[in-house]
C-alpha cells in the first residue's frame, strides 16, 4: 500500500518559525532533581576515591575482579564482599576525540573520553574517564595510562577526584 499513498502526513517547521512567532509554542523546565542513594558498593567507591584510591571487588565463585564495585556478581548472582585495592594505572581499551559537549557546544580542542582497563582486574574490566596531558593524535588503543588525582584537600568523593588519566 505504501506505493499507493501520495501524501504522507507530518508538518515540517523551521527553527525560524519559532523565533519569528509563526507557530504557537510554549516552554517548560521540568525541575527534576534527585539525591540518589549511593548505597554499599558505590558509597565505598566514592569514599575510596576521596582517599585517592581505586577499589574493586572480587567474586569468590568465578574469581572475576571488577570495577566499579558492586555487591553482587552479575554472572553468578552471588553476593560479593571481597574488596581489593587496585592500582591507578591501566590500558586504553578504546577512546574518542570529541569536538562537541553534551549540550552540543563546539570545542576546538577535543575532549578525549576513554574506556580504561584498570590494571589488576579481570580482562575487559575498566571504567570510563578522560585522557589528558596528551596530544590527541598520539592517543592509541593499548596505551598505558595513569590517574592524575586532584590534591587531597580538593577531593570530594567523586569520580572527578581523578582529573584525568595521562600516558605513562
Amino acid at each position, binding site marked *: 500500500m505504501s506505493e499507493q499513498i501520495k501524501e504522507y502526513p507530518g508538518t515540517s517547521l523551521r527553527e525560524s518559525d519559532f523565533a519569528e512567532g509563526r507557530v504557537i509554542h510554549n516552554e517548560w523546565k521540568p525541575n527534576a*532533581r534527585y539525591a540518589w542513594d549511593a*548505597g*554499599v*558498593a558505590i558509597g565505598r567507591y566514592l569514599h575510596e576515591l576521596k582517599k585517592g584510591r581505586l577499589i574493586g571487588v572480587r567474586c569468590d565463585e568465578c574469581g572475576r575482579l571488577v570495577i566499579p564495585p558492586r555487591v*553482587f556478581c552479575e554472572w553468578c548472582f552471588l553476593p560479593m564482599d571481597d574488596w581489593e585495592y587496585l592500582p591507578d594505572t591501566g590500558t586504553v581499551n578504546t577512546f574518542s576525540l570529541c569536538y562537541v559537549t553534551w549540550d552540543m557546544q563546539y570545542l576546538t580542542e577535543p575532549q578525549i573520553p576513554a574506556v580504561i582497563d584498570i590494571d589488576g582486574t579481570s580482562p575487559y574490566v575498566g571504567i570510563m574517564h578522560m585522557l589528558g596531558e596528551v596530544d590527541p593524535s598520539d592517543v592509541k588503543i593499548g596505551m598505558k595510562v595513569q590517574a592524575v588525582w586532584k590534591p587531597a584537600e580538593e577531593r570530594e568523593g567523586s569520580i572527578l577526584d581523578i582529573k584525568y588519566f595521562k600516558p605513562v
Partner: protein
Amino acid sequence: MSRSVAIVGIGYTSFRPLSPEVSYKELMYEAAVKAYHDAGVDPRSDVESLVTVAEDFLEGTSIFDEYVPDQLGGILKPNVTIPGDGIHGLATAYMQIASGLFDIVAVEAHSKASNVLTLPYVTAYAMDPVLNRPLAANPVFIAGMEMTRYLWASDATREQCAAVVAKNKRNALYNPAAAYPADLSVEDVLNADWLSYPLTDNDASYHADGAIVLVLAADDVARSLSNAPIWIRGIGWCNDAFSLETRAWGRAIYAEEAGKMAYRMAGIRNPMEEIDFAEIDDTYSYKELQHLEALGFCPLGQAGYLAEEGATDVGGILPVNVSGGSLGCGHLLDASGLRAVAMAVMQLRGEAGPRQLTDVETGLAFGWRGVPTTSGAAVVLGK
C-alpha cells in the same frame, strides 16, 4: 486456550520512608534474592525472561532499562521495561508465558521515591504540556477535583473516606513491612490540614521506598516448583481518556474496564460472592471506594456504606487492604500494584501471619498509576 500461569515466588523488602543504606540496585537485588529463594529457582539457569516496571523520571535516569538486568540475574537474557503499574508488568510476564514463549519469568517493581527531591514537579511534567501544565499547580489538585465530583455523584461522604484511612493504617499495625501504621480515628483524618479540598493530608498516602519481585511459571512447571502455586485466574488493564477535559471525573472507568476483562477471563459473575478479599489501590482515601464500585463489589455510589459498616474490615464480608494498602504500607509509586499482588499471594498461601484471613480461595489486586493518569490494572488470583 492459553496455558495457565501461576505465581511461584515472591520477594520484597520492607517498605520505609527512606533507604539510605542501599542503592536502588541493592534494593532490587535483595527482593530478587528473596523471590528466587522462595521459588526455589536459580535466576541464571532457570529464569528465562525478566520484566521490570519503571519510569525514567522517577529514577532520574533516561532509559532506565539499562540499569536493571545485573541485580535481577538477567544479563544476556530477554529483559523489558514496562512503564506502567506493577500489574501491567505482571500482565506482560503472564502473556510471555501464556504465548508459549517461556516457562519461567520474573517481574520486578521498586520505588526510590525518597530519592526524587521534586516529586510534585515531576508529576506535573506528566500533564498535558500545552493545556494544563502552564497552570503550574501542584498536580494533587486533580485528585481534589476528582474527589469533589465523586462525593457529589455518589452517596459517599468525607467521613466514609476517612474511615478507609483509619482502617488501612490500623491494618498496617499487623504488617511488619509497612511504613505508616497508625491508630487513627475518623476525626483525626477529618481534622488534618487541607491538602486539596476535600482531601486532607491524611487522606493521601505518603511515599515509601521498597522493591518487590515475583516469579511466574507455566502449568506443570509451576506445580513442580511449588506446593502452593497461586494461579492467575484473570488479568485485565485499561486506560480511560488521558485528557482532563474528556475523562470521566466521578467514575473510575479504567477500573471498570480492567475489572471486566479480568473477571471475564476468570469466569467471575458476582465479584462480591466469588472474591474473598481484595488489595485495591488506595493512593487517596476516596480511591478505595471509587475502585470498589468500579470493580463491581457494590452498585455505583454505594461503596461508602461498605467502609462505614465495616464490610471491608478484616472481619467483614470483603476485607480490603488487609496489608494496610498504600495508606498504611506507604505508596511505592508504580510498584504499588505489585505490592498489592505480593500481599494477596501471602494471604492465599496462608503466610500472612497476624493478619491472616481464614478460608480465602480467591483474591483480587488492583493498581492505579496515580495522578494525572487514568490507567489501571487488575488481577484475580486463586489457589
